[in-house]
């Protein structure tokens, strides 16, 4: 599992970071974000790459779990 902390990162950085994590672990990535825009962008990107995305909301933060 690869953890990506993209909290506070402006788009498209969360997506860039997620992609970089895919090189390290192509099957299981957890992404922490805190903006709706980032949630939408990372989800769209991961789905395009065939990942299943589950989201957990914790206050302002969202934990996205990407699995194949």
């Amino acid at each position: 599992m690869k953890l990506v902390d993209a909290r506070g990162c402006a788009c498209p950085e969360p997506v860039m970071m997620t992609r970089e994590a895919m090189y390290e672990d192509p099957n299981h990535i957890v992404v922490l974000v805190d903006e709706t825009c980032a949630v939408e962008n990372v989800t769209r990107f991961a789905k395009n790459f065939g990942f299943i995305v589950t989201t957990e909301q914790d206050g302002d933060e969202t934990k996205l779990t990407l699995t194949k």
Partner: protein
Amino acid sequence: MKKHLSVILTGVVIGVIALALVAFGNPANMGICVACFLRDTAGALKLQTAAPVQYVRPEIIGLILGAFLLSLFKKEFKPRGGSSPMTRFVLGMVVVMGALVFLGCPLRMLLRLGGGDLNALVGLVGFAGGVGLGALALKNGFSLKRTYEQSTLEGAVAPSLFAALLMAVLVVPTLFAFSTDGPGAKHAAVWMSLAGGLIIGGMAQRSRFCMAGGIRDGLLFKDFHLAWGSIALFVVVLAGNLILGKFKLGFADQPIAHMDGLWNFFGMALVGWGSVLLGGCPLRQTIMAGEGNTDSAITILGMLIGAAVCHNFGLASSAAGATFGGKIAVGIGALVLLAITLLNLNRKGAKA
């Protein structure tokens, strides 16, 4: 297609409102232009003294307040900031300088293109090239660092300032400078401009509409989601101009434009590059300022001051073409962007 609906709808609505605002008095191919309208607003505030371009554009106020109100309503109003604010101020200045050498922000570039102005096509090629440079920077780890949570008041300052500006101009208009001739004297009724801005602001807040983002995501991720919005906008404006008989294909005699191809290209290249470094085009910055992003609010101030500098020091182009000062400014702007790019390759893990 369904997932693109919101951004496509935003493009369509911006197109229709832009056509309507021109029909009701705004300058040709300038239903909405974030750069030009900030420039006019800077003029009205007497930050710059070019008599033909002074008017408090209610569209700009509407954009910010529309995004503010809808983000509040949708619980997406989120005060945040602290991601290299002064760097963003300078980026805002550079972007608006590039835009005023070309004569339009990316939004007006599409409006001009939809009116048949082929100079805007040259601008679009430059814009795409600039976005490409920005995308390359992102790929190599460019980041202006993280934002942090701010107080509600801090996030509400920018929308409040623009609301105050609206009140002031409605109650004591004599405080401001207004053009009696030129583009600044051409405008739709205040309520109409304000309503147009509010609607676009709200819709763009929901859909994250961004012109730089469309090309950027296409280049970086082969994700054309945002690009659909720009395409929809262009198609609607093109169709509207054809129907209204305002479509005129060519380079010569286009409204508020010049034929200096090289500088149309370089001006928009600067806008594209700077916009990607900022994380969005001038319209998107305005929307994010409404959502409580204080970095974007500072970017808007950078654009406001940059626009004033452009007109006070003869850097902005006119129908006659780019000025000598404007060309030098574009050169300096490119060096500034290069320095900001190279000094902010902060993100570890990026493949250099």
